[in-house]
C-alpha cells in the first residue's frame, strides 16, 4: 500500500467535521453512513445527515450517474445542516471522486479505494486518465488504500462467496474512518449481529473487515493523528437519531394516540414521500391502518372517507401527487372534515428532479384547487421537528375540522439528526371537535369563536346527515344555491382559517429583534439560514432570522416584525413563492429575494456571503 501525503494535513476543526461517504450504488454507502451516524450519536455528538442517491435504482456501475453518497456533519456544538463541504471524503471509485470533487474542503482528506482506480473505471467515470496523476488534488490529504484487495485478503479463509466478500469492502472503509475519529466499533458490531442474525459467517466477515480497516489506518500513519469530536452540550434528556420522514410518521402516531383516534393513511408511493408509508406500515401493532391505494386520488379520497368515519386520516405524497389530489382536497374543504395532506416536496415542474429537494410546491399547496378553497398550510423545518409538525397538523385538523396541508421536502425527509425524545404525556392535549349522541345536531352550526362545525361520525345514533361537494346552507348543511348563502359560506371558510392566528403562537425571531436585515425563510431551509445568521451574529451584525412554520394563516405579529427592519430578504429554494405570498399579505414592504433552484439545499457559506453583501450596501 501507498499513502501519498501531498501536503501536511491541515488540522480539521474539532468542533465539527463533515464526512462524506461516496461510492457506487451497490457499494453500501448508505449503510456505512448510517453506522457512522449512529455511533456518533451514541457518543453524544450533535449531527445532521443527508443521503444523496441517483434517480435510477442502479445506474450503470462505475458511472457518475450511479454514485450514491451519504453526508454527515457531527459536532460538539449545535449542528443545523449536513454541512456545505466535506472535511473527509471516502471515494470508493473514480466516479465517486469526480462527483464530489467540488464538495471537498481544500486541504481535506480523501480516502480512496485505489483498487478501483484503473483505466476501465476512469473511463466509466468519464476521466481520460487518472485524476490522481494530474495536479487536481494537490493540497489535499490523499489516502490511497487498497480496500478491495485487503478485504479479499482478510476474508481469504472465509466461507463466503466472492460476491459477498466484495460487498464487505464498505466495512473496511468504515473501519478507517472509525479510527480517524476515534470511535468505538461496538455499536456497529451489534448492529451487524442483528442484521445478519441468520448468517453468522456474514457477521464474522463484516466485523473482521471493519477491524482490518481500523488496524490498517492505525498502521499506515497516513494521518498525523486521529481526531476526536467531543460530545455536544445538548439539553438533558434521552436522545435518538431520527430521519424526517420517520419523525413525521411518529408524530402522527403520537397524535392519534393522544386524540384517541385510529390512524389511517391512504397513500400511493412516490419519491421522496414513500418512506412515511413504509414507516407507518410497520406499526400495525399500534393499530395504524395503511392503505396503499391505486393512485393518489384514491389515496386522498380514502382518507376523507376514513375521516368521515372517525379516523385521524392522512395522505402523503410529493408534488405531482399533490396536483392529483387537488379536487379531493377541495371536497374536504367544502365538507369541513379533518384531513392532513403531507407533501414531501421535490424538484419540479412535472417529474422534474424526483430525488432532489426543492420548495416549489408552496403556491400549489395554497391555491392548487378550484374556487375559493383555503386550507391551513404548515411547514416543518428540521428532520426532527417533522414530528412536532405532524402532531400539530393533526391537532389543528381534529380540533378545527378543516384540512391541513403539511409541507416537508426531500432534504428534511431523508435527512437525519438527533432528537430529544418527548413522551406522549408531555405533548399538548388533542380534543377532537365531535358531536355526540343526544346532541342537538346541525351539521353546519358553528362554534362562535373558532368558527368550526362539529362532525358527527357514522354509527352515532340520531345524528344521520348528508355531506357533499355542492355548496352547503349555513347551519343546516343542506344543499343551497342561494347567492347570499354562497358568499357567506365562502367568507366563513376563509375566516375560520384566519381566526387560527389567534390561537397559534406569535412568530419568533432569532437574533436581533429589529435592525438592519431581516432574513426570512420557511420550511426546510432552517438549518442553513440559522447557521448563516448565527455566524453573522457572532460578528455582531444587525440581523434577525424569522423562519416560518405557519404559512396559512401567518402568525399575527408578522407585520410587526417586518416593520422593525430596514431590509428584508426572503430566502427560498424556489423562484420566490413565499416572497410573493408575503407581498399579497403585507403591502408597503420591499421583499428582496434570494433563491436557489438546483435541487440542493442552500449552503451556509453562500447565504453568509449574500447577507454580508446586503448588510454592506
Amino acid at each position: 500500500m501507498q499513502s501519498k501525503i501531498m501536503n501536511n494535513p491541515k488540522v480539521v476543526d474539532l468542533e465539527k467535521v463533515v464526512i462524506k461517504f461516496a461510492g457506487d450504488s451497490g457499494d453500501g454507502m448508505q449503510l456505512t453512513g448510517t453506522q457512522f451516524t449512529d455511533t456518533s450519536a451514541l457518543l453524544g455528538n450533535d449531527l445532521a445527515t443527508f443521503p444523496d442517491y441517483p434517480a435510477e435504482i442502479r445506474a450503470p456501475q462505475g458511472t457518475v450517474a450511479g454514485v450514491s453518497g451519504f453526508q454527515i456533519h457531527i459536532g460538539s456544538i449545535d449542528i443545523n445542516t449536513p454541512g456545505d463541504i466535506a472535511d473527509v471524503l471516502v471515494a470508493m471509485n473514480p466516479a465517486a471522486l469526480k462527483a464530489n470533487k467540488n464538495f471537498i474542503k481544500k486541504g481535506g482528506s480523501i480516502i480512496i479505494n485505489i483498487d478501483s482506480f484503473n483505466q476501465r473505471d476512469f473511463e466509466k467515470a468519464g476521466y481520460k486518465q487518472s485524476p490522481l496523476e494530474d495536479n487536481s488534488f494537490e493540497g489535499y490529504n490523499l489516502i490511497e488504500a487498497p480496500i478491495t484487495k485487503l478485504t479479499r485478503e482478510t476474508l481469504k479463509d472465509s466461507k463466503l462467496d466472492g460476491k459477498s466478500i466484495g460487498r464487505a469492502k464498505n466495512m473496511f472503509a468504515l473501519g478507517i474512518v472509525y479510527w480517524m475519529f476515534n470511535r468505538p466499533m461496538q455499536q456497529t458490531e451489534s448492529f451487524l449481529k442483528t442484521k445478519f442474525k441468520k448468517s453468522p459467517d456474514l457477521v464474522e466477515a463484516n466485523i473482521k473487515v471493519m477491524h482490518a480497516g481500523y488496524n490498517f489506518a492505525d498502521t499506515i500513519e497516513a494521518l498525523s493523528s486521529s481526531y476526536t469530536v467531543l460530545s455536544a452540550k445538548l439539553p438533558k434528556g434521552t436522545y435518538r437519531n431520527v430521519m424526517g420522514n420517520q419523525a413525521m410518521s411518529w408524530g402522527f402516531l403520537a397524535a392519534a394516540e393522544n386524540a384517541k383516534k385510529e390512524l389511517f393513511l391512504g397513500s400511493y408511493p412516490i419519491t421522496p414521500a414513500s418512506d412515511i408509508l413504509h414507516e407507518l406500515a410497520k406499526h400495525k401493532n399500534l393499530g395504524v391502518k395503511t392503505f396503499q391505494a391505486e393512485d393518489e386520488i384514491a389515496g386522498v379520497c380514502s382518507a376523507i372517507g376514513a375521516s368521515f368515519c372517525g379516523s385521524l386520516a392522512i395522505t402523503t405524497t410529493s408534488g405531482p401527487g399533490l396536483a392529483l389530489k387537488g379536487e379531493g382536497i377541495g371536497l374536504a374543504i367544502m365538507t369541513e372534515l379533518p384531513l392532513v395532506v403531507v407533501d414531501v416536496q421535490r424538484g419540479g415542474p412535472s417529474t422534474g428532479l424526483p430525488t432532489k429537494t426543492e420548495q416549489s410546491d408552496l403556491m400549489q399547496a395554497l391555491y392548487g384547487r378550484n374556487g375559493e378553497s383555503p386550507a391551513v398550510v404548515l411547514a416543518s423545518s428540521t428532520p426532527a421537528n417533522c414530528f412536532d409538525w405532524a402532531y400539530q397538523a393533526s391537532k389543528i385538523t381534529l380540533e378545527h375540522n378543516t384540512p391541513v396541508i403539511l409541507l416537508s421536502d426531500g432534504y428534511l425527509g431523508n435527512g437525519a439528526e438527533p432528537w430529544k425524545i418527548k413522551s406522549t404525556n408531555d405533548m399538548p392535549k388533542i380534543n377532537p371537535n365531535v358531536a355526540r349522541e343526544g346532541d342537538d345536531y346541525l351539521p353546519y352550526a358553528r362554534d362562535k369563536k373558532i368558527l368550526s362545525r362539529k362532525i358527527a361520525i357514522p354509527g352515532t345514533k340520531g345524528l344521520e346527515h348528508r355531506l357533499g361537494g355542492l355548496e352547503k346552507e349555513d347551519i343546516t348543511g343542506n344543499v343551497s344555491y342561494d347567492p347570499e348563502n354562497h358568499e357567506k359560506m365562502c367568507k366563513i371558510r376563509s375566516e375560520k382559517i384566519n381566526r387560527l392566528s389567534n390561537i397559534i403562537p406569535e412568530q419568533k425571531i432569532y437574533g436581533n429583534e429589529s435592525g438592519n436585515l431581516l432574513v426570512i425563510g420557511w420550511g426546510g431551509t432552517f438549518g442553513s439560514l440559522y447557521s448563516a445568521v448565527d455566524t453573522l451574529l457572532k460578528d455582531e451584525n444587525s440581523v434577525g432570522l424569522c423562519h416560518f412554520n405557519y404559512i396559512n394563516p401567518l402568525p399575527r405579529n408578522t407585520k410587526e416584525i417586518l416593520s422593525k427592519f430596514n431590509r428584508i430578504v426572503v430566502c427560498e429554494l424556489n423562484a420566490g413563492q413565499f416572497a410573493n405570498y408575503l407581498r399579497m399579505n403585507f403591502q408597503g414592504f420591499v421583499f428582496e429575494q434570494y433563491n436557489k433552484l438546483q435541487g440542493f439545499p442552500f449552503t451556509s457559506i453562500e447565504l453568509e456571503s449574500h447577507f454580508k453583501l446586503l448588510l454592506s450596501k
Partner: protein
Amino acid sequence: MEKLTNKDFSSDQEVRWCPGCGDYAILRAMQKSLPLLNRKKEDFIFISGIGCSSRFPYYMDTYGFHSIHGRAPAFATGMKLANPNLSIWQITGDGDALAIGGNHFIHALRRNIDINILLFNNEIYGLTKGQFSPTSKKGIKTKSNPHGTTDEPFSPSDLSLGAKSSFFARVVDTNPKLMQKIFVEAEAHKGTSLIEIMQNCVIFNDKTFSSITGKDVKKDAQLTLEHGKPILYGATMNKGIILNKFKLETVIIGENGITIDDILVHDAYEQDSTLHAMLARMRPPEFPAALGVIRSVKRSTFDNDMNSQIDHEKKNAKFNNVNELLFSGDTWNV
C-alpha cells in the same frame, strides 16, 4: 332493536329527478329493503359520486356523502377500513363508475372490500345533459357525437368479472320486488357486491332497455337466475338454457326431446367465473337477459384481511403504545 320502516329511511329533502326517471323506483325499493336488514339506522352510509343517480344519498335518512365524480369506491374503501361495522352502499352511474371512476371501480372489486355498489346504468350521462357514456350502444347519436359514437361500450359484467368481482347481480328498474331481494342478498354477501341496474333515463336515452323491459317482450326477454335452480324463463317457464359444447343455447322443454333435466342448473357459488360471464352476456333477441344474482362466491375481504393482520400484530406487539416505540432501539442519554 327497534323495528324500522321505509319511512325511517326517507329524508326531508325533496326528490329532484325528472318525472318518470327510473331512479325513483330504485329509491323506493331501497327504502323498503333496509328495514329487512336488521341493522341500526345509524350504521348505514350511502356514498355516491356525481351524476343524477349520485343525488340518491340526499334522499335517504342515513349518513350520506355525495362526493366527487368517479371516486366513490375510494371514499367507500376508506370508510369501511375505518369502521368495518358499517353497512356501506355506493351509488354510482355508468359515467361515474366506468368513465372517470373506472380505476377505483376495478380496484374495489379486485380487493373485495365489503361494500355494496349499485350501478345505475342508463347508458348515458344524465346530469350533464346527455353525452354518451362508456356503456352507450355504439352508434347512438348524442350531443357529444351527433354523428353517432365510435366507442365500443364496456360490458359491465365482463369488466367486473375480469376484475375478480365476487358478487354480480342484475336487475331492471321496473322490478321492485327483485331489487329488494337482491339488495338483501348483496348486504349478506361479504365482499364487494355489484348490482347493475338497468335504469331508464326518460330524457336523454328513453327506452334504451326496451328490448328487455318492454311490457310486450319482457316475459321472453328476461330470465331471473336463482342459485341451485334450473335456468328457465318465458311466460309459462317452459323455456330454458342449455350448454352445448362451449356455447349457451335456448331450448323449449318438450321440444326436440328436451326435458327439465337437460336444463342448466344455476350455480352462483362456483369460483370459476366462466359460466357466469356467459350467462351475463346473453341478450335479446337471441337470448333473454339474465337478471338476479349471477355470481356470489366466497373470497376473503380486504377489510377483514387488514383487520386480522392488525389483530395479529397487536397480539405479537413489540410496543403497546407510542412511548414504547419512541424510546425503543438505539437511544442515549445526555
